[in-house]
């Protein structure tokens, strides 16, 4: 076990992948000498060379599009999109090419591409640097979408994503980059928990609280605070957003009878809607209350002085928990 930051854990995972498979190449803006704007690729170009850790010109569609060509050639590209809000120029290549080529070619061509995306807010940055675009990609068939919430998973899941023969969007909660945690860097990703499985973090009996990425920590803090009030919350880290591991969520909700899901992304058409609908379909007769969503608002990501109003915090999550439990809450007395 080694103590390391979230960012360092991803770096260590990337290093392992580069060591273990000569076909792994990294592409992105500023990932070489600088080590990326978040230093996630720190030192990798120095150790693996400019042909394996490639500083690219500033064109996101081209970064992903050339990764497609490299995959055609048998490579396993790992792409860094510098910030969530910069992924849109690459949207066509991701949705029309990366996601569909295996289907289009009737399985002849694999797209083992990993697209790393720092996402989410809470770091006081200007526009386009704090977005949560995951639902665009969970809605796109052919892609796998994962996020990680602790350094150990960051280390393991990045390696699992890279070795996966399907394309994977790997969302990194950027406000947690500097959080530290224990990492067992001898853990073999092939025998670790697969990346498409959710994880129950705290066992509880009253409410199932589903979170992912940056809000897992917030959810755990909320569960700790709630336990002081005698409320027992089961926190689930989804980890995989496409596909969602519904078996794990269903098993939990069948016990607790109540579901709260939280994410930073806006509410309408978001992943919370998908989880709420699917769980309602599968657990309707076990539910004691309607599923509750605690999410960002349906607004462009706001300027940083107001971002803490947009981001679900501990108290907003607990307010949602109160709604699920039928306890007095901010919406008490409102119809519908």
């Amino acid at each position, binding site marked *: 076990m080694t103590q390391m930051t979230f960012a360092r854990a991803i770096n260590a995972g990337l290093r392992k992948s580069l060591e273990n498979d000569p076909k792994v190449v990294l592409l992105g803006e500023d990932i070489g000498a600088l080590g990326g704007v978040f230093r996630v690729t720190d030192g990798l170009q120095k150790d693996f060379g400019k042909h394996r850790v490639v500083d690219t*010109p500033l064109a996101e569609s081209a970064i992903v*599009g*050339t990764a497609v060509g*490299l995959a055609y050639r048998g490579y396993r590209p790992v792409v860094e999109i510098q910030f969530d809000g910069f992924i849109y120029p690459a949207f066509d290549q991701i949705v029309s090419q990366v996601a569909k080529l295996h*289907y289009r070619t009737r399985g*002849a061509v694999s797209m083992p591409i990993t697209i790393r995306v720092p996402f989410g807010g809470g770091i006081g940055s200007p526009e386009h640097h704090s977005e949560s675009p995951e639902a665009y990609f969970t809605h796109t068939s052919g892609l796998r979408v994962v996020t990680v919430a602790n350094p150990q998973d960051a280390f393991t899941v990045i390696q699992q994503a890279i070795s996966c023969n*399907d394309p994977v969007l790997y969302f990194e909660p950027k406000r947690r980059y500097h959080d530290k945690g224990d990492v067992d860097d001898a853990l073999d990703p092939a025998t670790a928990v697969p990346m*498409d499985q959710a994880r129950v973090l705290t066992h509880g009996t009253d409410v199932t609280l589903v979170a992912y990425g940056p809000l897992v920590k917030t959810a755990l803090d909320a569960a700790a605070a709630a336990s002081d009030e005698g409320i027992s919350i089961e926190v689930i880290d989804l980890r995989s957003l496409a596909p969602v591991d519904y078996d794990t969520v269903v098993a939990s909700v069948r016990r607790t009878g109540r579901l709260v899901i939280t994410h930073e992304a806006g509410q309408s058409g978001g992943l919370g809607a998908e989880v709420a609908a699917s769980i309602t379909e599968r657990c309707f007769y076990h539910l004691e209350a309607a599923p509750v969503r605690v999410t960002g608002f349906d607004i462009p990501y706001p300027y940083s002085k107001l971002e803490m109003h947009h981001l679900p915090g501990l108290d907003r999550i607990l307010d949602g928990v109160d709604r699920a439990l039928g306890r007095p809450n901010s919406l008490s007395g409102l119809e519908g």
Partner: protein
Amino acid sequence: MSIDETGQGGTAAPNSARHPHGQGRDLVQLVTPSGERVSHPEFDYWVRDITDEQLCSLFEDMTVIRRIDVEATALQRQGELALWPPLLGQEAAQIGSGRALRLDDFVFSSYRENGVAYCRGVDLTDIVRVWRGNASSGWDPYAINMATPQIIIGAQTLHATGYAMGIQNDGADSVAVTYFGDGATSEGDVNEAMVFAASFQVPVVFFCTNNHWAISEPVRLQSHIQLADRAAGFGIPSLRVDGNDVLAVMAATRVALDRARRGGGPTFIEAVSYRMGPHTTADDPTRYRDANELEDWAAKDPISRIAALLERKGLLTDGLQQQVKDKADAVARGMRTGCTTMPDPEPLDVFKHVYSTPNSWLDRQQDHYARYLASFGDPAGAVSEEGAR
């Protein structure tokens, strides 16, 4: 916004701006429309090995792909294909370049390069598979080193550039060749591909077939300068050739391939040709283009031209013509049979190959749909418009 027909616009224009897309003095031509072989100080060298026999086989290939194209258009009119993008008029551009490639080169094309696919040795049934709606691709890309044709305009140029980055990493001397049209040169992806190709000096050839029309939009709407001149802005050398002259196209392609194999990086080729037919069988060019223009280009027809060259050389015998016709007819018959006897896909094939590893979401949907289908005596009834209930 109106198009400046003169091409002179309000900005300083290069010498050729008056007729930027015409046959300016820098257009490489080795065979005139009347079949005269004209010498060229630089390009003769690149086709010096072409024997009479090879000239005859170029004539054969061009004739065969025109025949394939006619047959596929007929299949569409007869309801056997949903759609077809004709290549009529672009035979020299496709055969001249396609025949210049090595087996280990890799092609990333648009949907119109069926003549290039023919050069790669494609099974002709695979060419029409997509257009019949039986699959989203025809052939296994690795079987003929040619990617599934791209429908998103220009997207494939980035794939070729990335593939070429891989060739460079591997230390190989093969080349990625990407085909696209005049309209594609306006797309961001094509411009980004040229930026990457130039920055990394990778072995890629940008083969732009300027057929003058992007559906209904004339090339002058895409560019006020010759398309080949755009390459200079990226630091990429370019060649502008008569795209209806199969020898000139072959020579230019060989120049570009040779440069790439020697580590000289990318080349941009503009092959000036003309889309004699509609954009696809769903298009109606009489709504937007002048019949005179079509006539002018018909006089520059690529097959008539090589036939005229063969005639001057005394090679266009009745025997050759009959042999070529028989080959073309046989190929077309084979394609028609392959098309009309192609088995329909199975209903549950719709779920196949979305992922290469099990996916709990999709596996559940497939399972539920299989149960749904099984609830009907005849699964075809389940999807008929009037329903089966």
